[in-house]
Structures are given as structure tokens and as C-alpha cells.
């Protein structure tokens, strides 16, 4: 592995994410790095522009609650069975964040355009939705391959500054295995830098193993890796551990109020870490 790729901890990766950066996160149960979100909170990150690929969940809500976020671009913010995301909703109401609503395939498409190195990509649908009406950065052209009168939306390429992913394992070359959650590969291809927390290191080269290579992101795209066992919790990691629905429901209850959220944050993010370091 490139010597600077393997960092000592999620904190060391978080220190490399500057305030104001555009940070892409996969949704709950699709390999967001909750460990890195917590490390960003602990370092007091400010002004982050979050991108939900294509929707946002637990990690986004705690980053918003902790005051790290200026803008969220996403197709939805939700805690799944635990309901609406309380800190997102409160921050939107109070005007503390800018929300740029999208729709799931549009987010995938903008990243695919960046992955391909093209300035835009078309997408069907969308016409007649107020999402389009509120996205001056999206355009409608007349499909040049039709005889005329076939409007189609063009979406601009989107290249996040950072993708933050939690994967099952990395090898010493810096390759990362995340199995079937291949939208994470597209995020990594589109992002300027990708930081990955992993459960464990893998002996041997993931790309040399025909069974593991298909679920691997090549080290080419990976700028930093840190070990963070259980780093997706409370959300699920493939078949390795499931979602902790009780924990998220408890969070949803606590985070209904600012005070409740701050107490939850102290207990589960700030103090817990200080205890671990002590």
C-alpha cells in the first residue's frame, strides 16, 4: 500500500477533509462510513456539503445535528423504519441548511457522467416534476435523434470532493472489497478522493482473487484507508452485521429535540471516544 494510504484511525482521515468540502455518502445499509461521520463531528467540521447517493440516512442526520453541514443534495433523508430524520427536518425548518432536492436516478446519472468524463448525461422522466423546476443547473433539450418534439433532461457531471465509505476489507495494496454495493464504486470513480474505513485487512491481493475481484474497488481510486471495526454501525454491513433498529429508534426519539440530540451526541460520539482513548 502507498505509505500515505493507510492511516492510523478514522480521525486521521477526517483531518484530511477540509471544511466546506462536498462529501458523498451512500445510504443506510449501503456502506456509509458512520465511523468517519463521527470522526468529522469530533474534529468539528463545518460547512460540509453532503451528497446522498442517492438518499441520506443516519450519518447525514447526525452530521447535520452536530452543525457540520451547510448543504444537503439528496433524493430523500430518512431513518427508514424509524421515520423522518429529525435533525435534518429541524435544520431545514430553521433555515440552517440548504436542501437541493434530486431524484435517485438523477444522482446516479450525475456521478456516472463524472465517472465517464463527459460533461453531462441524459435521463428520462423528471419533466413535469417540481424537482426539475427547482434545479436551474439541469437542462432540457430536444432529443437530436428524434424527429423533434421529444424533450429530454440533461444532468451535469458531479464530482464530489470526497466519498466516505465503509467496506468489509482492504488489502495491503490499497484495494477495497465492498461486494455487491457497486454504486460505491461509481461514487469512488466520480469522486476526487475516496476515504474508506474497513473492518479488517485482507492478506493477499484482492484483485488477484477471481472470486473477490468483482466486488473490489481498485486502489487507483482510494486516497485513504483506516481500520474501524463495526464502522457502519448502527446500519448494516452486507452479511457481516445487521442494522441495529433499536439503536436507531432510540436515536430518533432522542433527536426530536436539540437537547435530546446533544445528550445523545455526547454519550455516543464525543464521550464514548474519550473513554476509548483514556
Amino acid at each position: 500500500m502507498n505509505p500515505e494510504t493507510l492511516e492510523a484511525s478514522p480521525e486521521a482521515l477526517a483531518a484530511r477533509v477540509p471544511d466546506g468540502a462536498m462529501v458523498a455518502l451512500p445510504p443506510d445499509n449501503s456502506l456509509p462510513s458512520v465511523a468517519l461521520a463521527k470522526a468529522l463531528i469530533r474534529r468539528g467540521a463545518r460547512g460540509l456539503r453532503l451528497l446522498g447517493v442517492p438518499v441520506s440516512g443516519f450519518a447525514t442526520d447526525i452530521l447535520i445535528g452536530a452543525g457540520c453541514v451547510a448543504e444537503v443534495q439528496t433524493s430523500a433523508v430518512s431513518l427508514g423504519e424509524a421515520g423522518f430524520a429529525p435533525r435534518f427536518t429541524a435544520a431545514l425548518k430553521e433555515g440552517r441548511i440548504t436542501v437541493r432536492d434530486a431524484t435517485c436516478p438523477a444522482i446516479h446519472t450525475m456521478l456516472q457522467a463524472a465517472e465517464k468524463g463527459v460533461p453531462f448525461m441524459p435521463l428520462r422522466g423528471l419533466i413535469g416534476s417540481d424537482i426539475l423546476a427547482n434545479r436551474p443547473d439541469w437542462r432540457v433539450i430536444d432529443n437530436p435523434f428524434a424527429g423533434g418534439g421529444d424533450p429530454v433532461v440533461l444532468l451535469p457531471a458531479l464530482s464530489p470532493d470526497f466519498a466516505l465509505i465503509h467496506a468489509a476489507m482492504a488489502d495491503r495494496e490499497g484495494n477495497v472489497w465492498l461486494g455487491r454495493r457497486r454504486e460505491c464504486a461509481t461514487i469512488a470513480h466520480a469522486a476526487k478522493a475516496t476515504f474508506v474505513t474497513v473492518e479488517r485487512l485482507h492478506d493477499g491481493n484482492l484483485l488477484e482473487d477471481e472470486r473477490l475481484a468483482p466486488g473490489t474497488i481498485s486502489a487507483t481510486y482510494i486516497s485513504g484507508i483506516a481500520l474501524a471495526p463495526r464502522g457502519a454501525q448502527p446500519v448494516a454491513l452486507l452479511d457481516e452485521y445487521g442494522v441495529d433498529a433499536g439503536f436507531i429508534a432510540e436515536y430518533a426519539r432522542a433527536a426530536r429535540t436539540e437537547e435530546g440530540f446533544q445528550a445523545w451526541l455526547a454519550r455516543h460520539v464525543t464521550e464514548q471516544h474519550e473513554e476509548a482513548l483514556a
Partner: protein
Amino acid sequence: MSGPEIKPEERLAATLARLILDPAAPPARHIAVGAASPIPAAACWLVKKSGHPVRLSLLHKRSGNPFTEGSRELFDLTGQGRIDLFFLGGGQIDGQANINLIGTGEWPGTGARFPGSFGSAFMYMMTPRTILFREEHSPRVLVEKVDNISAPGLSAPGVFRRGTAQALVTGRAVFRFDPARGRFALESAHPGEDVASIRAATGFDYDEPAHLPATPDPTPEQLALLRGPVRDEMIETYPEFCARVFGAAEKKDAAA
């Protein structure tokens, strides 16, 4: 089995299954079901366990997730025309079958904010058939005109669109949608409801039959399937729903 009483969720699942199998509609060979939709999922399993050869793609099913390109694959599949039927809900649904998953008041939801549009702005237009489903049936949800359009029920001429709403199923009634007229027609009311109670609970205008049928009960065969093989398929993804509707779970939640 949890006993002989028919739960509202069981009736809704059987109602959705009947709409899925509607012989007048284009065939539903492949149905996708979103994450937070246990009743539509139960309806799809009921269709499949009744012996109909339908392919189900259940989003966020942890085991046996059918997608290997991540969540992008659902939208690509739909773009290819391989998804025949999808379910959508809405914080608001209006009389032209527009849905609002954004929020009330000014954009982006300065009144009540909903979670967001998910893939609706694409799925609604690219799927030949959509069944709108929302248990809450109130003037707050079923409005004359949505405050914000996540996905439109109708499109201007020339705009590419494969289909729109087939029907709207709520906790009180079933409506059919006629895209030519841009208007719902009440088809049946669930037990306990009548013409007047539906009218009072609905914020948009709609057509009404001279004689309003009751939404049928599930058959004993359907109930047996729901409480047996359907529950077994759903328990991993929807443990709380299965416990509440179908009775005590026999399998353990894998995530517990």
C-alpha cells in the same frame, strides 16, 4: 396463524393483489417494491404464492437482494422497460394523480417537510403501471392540488412516459385513475365506509358509481397464504410488521 379475524393490512394486500392481476392491465411480469412498503410487498408475495409466475425485486431485502450494481440497477432496469409495475405513496396525492413527497408550503417544504422524492420523478413515468398506495385517507393527504409535485400523474403531449397511476388504494377505499380524463373514480369502499364518509375524507373531486361496492374480503386461501408462506418470506425484512399483522414470528430476525 393469528386467528380468524381479517386484519385491515390483509384486506389491503388482497386488494392490491387483485389490482396486480387485473386482466385489463398490461401484464406484471416483474414488479419492484420499495423499502418501506410491507403491504405492497405482501401483495406481491401473495400473487407469487398463488402460483402466478411473477418476478419480484424487493429493494433493501438484505438476503437475496436481486441487484449487483447497487441501487442504480433498479432505475436502469426500469429505464430498459423491464419493470412492469411499481408502487408509490405520497405525503400528498391530488385528483390528477400528482404526488408530493417533498413537503407542504413553499419549496422545499417550508410547512411540513416530507423525506424527499426518492426515485418517484423517474419511476412514475418509466413504469407502465403504478399503484398509488397510502393508508392514511384524509383531506390532509388526498388534496385537490399538491403543494409541490415530486412526480406528475399526467404529462404534456410529446413527453416520453410509459404509464401512470392504475389505481389509488387507501385505508378506506379503492379508486381507479383514468389518465384520459385526468380523474379518479371511486371503485369500492372498505368495511365501515360509505359514499358519504369517503367524500368527507377526500380533498379532491372524483367520480362515484350509482351503487358503491364493498371492497371484498380476502378469500380463506388468500388468508392462509398470507399467514403462512407470505409471512415466511417477509419476516426477515419486516419483522415488526409480520409480528403485528400475522402473529408471532417463528423465525428470528437476522439483525437482532
